[in-house]
């Protein structure tokens, strides 16, 4: 496996029959698999073996899928390139000198290279859509609450969702059908049938975009790479030729989405990752000192630099004197982003943008400058702040042959709308 898409290759057999009986699925390594180690791409959990399955893994098994391994990822999901993994970077199968995107880079690379038919990723600020775009495959970030997070090792609970990665929209929709639906073990799950829809996602992949109204937020094109923007408009032209229409919309709030996202995600991370103290699991701090010294030593050893950076910045944003300045303002920005999206979606069926403002970076290019890496998430993070569903579908390639993703955002529980629209392209 020269791409290093997997951290652990191990076969987990599912039921004999079911909708996924003949399919192989790669599972991101922050999703718990009973008896199979689950590292989150971190040295901290190098030999952690969960005693239970995540709900989505149970559902895969019941659906007959064969899990083929646990995929590489940015440590605890914290990255946009899969380079912050303690197990080394994954290569992009389209161009091995480039990153596959992140944080679910191993999952997208495995699907793009045919090492698995389908994959599970998790998306906190773009971690399914970014690698799907960079590897030229399809990824869906579901509406917040559509898919159970039970057994997903938490990074930022209020933002993240598990979702499918697949070669085509129809296959991604088939996998979403298996994953979606309420779970009594995750109190934030909601039943789509209470929200005026159903779970027949695969049937929605009929490619019918006749009469579809597409809003294009101008803010999400500003500052994007020229080759990306060109490919994006080609895809919109293609949708138009199939009967869709587009109009420009403005979402002034999204100018603040990246900073709001990072303040909220880092704050939640600083709390979530407090559990890694080397006592119940993880690397033991072997300091001879007291609790605090032992924890601090275990966490220095077990966490990589990006994780330390985010936990520290989150601690800072929540600390006395700074809470109102950062965390509270970020929550205001989140509410503003939600309002903007609701308004724009009252006059359009979907909102379209490039998934990523840039083509896949060269490996090693982004690690020294964290802020620049954060800014690459400009188009994906607003969707998590607004709790909405979004799909990334291949829009075409740049002249250099690098994949560009088209992101389509729908209203809450509008999965069928974005699946139908996306299936006109892939």
């Amino acid at each position, binding site marked *: 496996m020269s791409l290093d898409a997997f951290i652990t290759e191990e076969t987990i057999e599912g039921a004999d029959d079911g909708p996924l009986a003949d399919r192989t699925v790669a599972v991101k390594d922050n999703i718990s698999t009973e008896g199979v180690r689950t590292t989150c791409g971190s040295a901290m959990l190098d030999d952690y073996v969960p005693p239970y399955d995540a709900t989505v893994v149970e559902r895969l098994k019941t659906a007959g899928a064969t899990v083929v391994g646990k995929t590489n990822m940015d440590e605890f999901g914290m990255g946009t390139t899969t380079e912050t993994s303690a197990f080394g970077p994954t290569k992009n199968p389209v161009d091995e000198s480039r990153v596959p995107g992140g944080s679910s880079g191993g999952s997208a690379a495995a699907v793009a290279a045919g090492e698995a038919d389908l994959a599970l990723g998790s998306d906190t600020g773009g971690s399914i859509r970014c690698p799907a775009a960079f590897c030229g495959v399809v990824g869906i970030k579901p509406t917040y609450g559509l898919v159970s997070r039970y057994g997903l090792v938490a990074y930022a609970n209020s933002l993240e969702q598990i979702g499918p990665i697949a070669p085509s929209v129809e296959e991604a929709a088939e996998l979403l059908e298996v994953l979606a639906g309420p779970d009594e073990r995750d109190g934030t799950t909601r039943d789509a049938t209470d929200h005026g829809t159903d779970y027949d996602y695969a049937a929605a992949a009929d490619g019918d975009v006749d009469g579809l109204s597409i809003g294009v937020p101008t803010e999400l094109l500003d500052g994007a790479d020229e080759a990306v923007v060109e490919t994006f408009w080609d895809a919109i032209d293609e949708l138009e030729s199939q009967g869709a229409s587009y109009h420009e919309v403005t979402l002034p709030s999204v100018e*603040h989405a990246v900073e709001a996202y*990072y303040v909220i995600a880092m704050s939640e991370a600083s709390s979530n990752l407090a559990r890694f103290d080397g006592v119940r699991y993880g690397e033991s701090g072997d300091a001879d000192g007291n609790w605090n010294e032992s924890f601090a030593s275990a966490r220095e050893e077990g966490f990589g630099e990006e994780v330390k950076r985010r936990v520290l910045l989150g601690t800072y944003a929540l600390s006395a004197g700074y809470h109102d300045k950062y965390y509270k303002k970020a929550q205001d920005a989140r*509410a503003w982003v939600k309002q903007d999206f609701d308004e724009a979606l009252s006059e359009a069926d979907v909102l379209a943008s490039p998934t990523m403002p840039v083509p896949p970076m060269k490996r090693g290019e982004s690690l020294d400058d964290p802020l620049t890496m954060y800014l690459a998430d400009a188009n994906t993070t607003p969707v998590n702040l607004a709790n909405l569903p979004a799909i990334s579908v291949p829009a075409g390639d740049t002249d250099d042959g690098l994949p560009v993703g088209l992101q389509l955002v729908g209203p809450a529980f509008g999965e069928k709308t974005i699946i139908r629209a996306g299936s006109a392209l892939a």
Partner: protein
Amino acid sequence: MSETPVDPDEVRHVADLARIDLDEDEVDRFTVQFADILSYFDALDDVPEVEAEADLVNVMRPDEVREGLSQEEALRNAPETEDGYFKGPSVS
């Protein structure tokens, strides 16, 4: 460069709150990077106050005893255990 003052002592203080030891190189790098990142976050000052109705519903269930992990399963990943308990460092 940033207007947000961040000095090495502040980085050490936050690291202490977060219970993460840092080496001196990390303190130096984080001091520079945090100034950069925090000054970018300062743009949140321009965000208006937004009245948002939180769309929250309590999810309740009967408090019934049900099967959970066995003690052995719960302890399986602990680096150190003693007599069926987690073993941690000394408290003082």
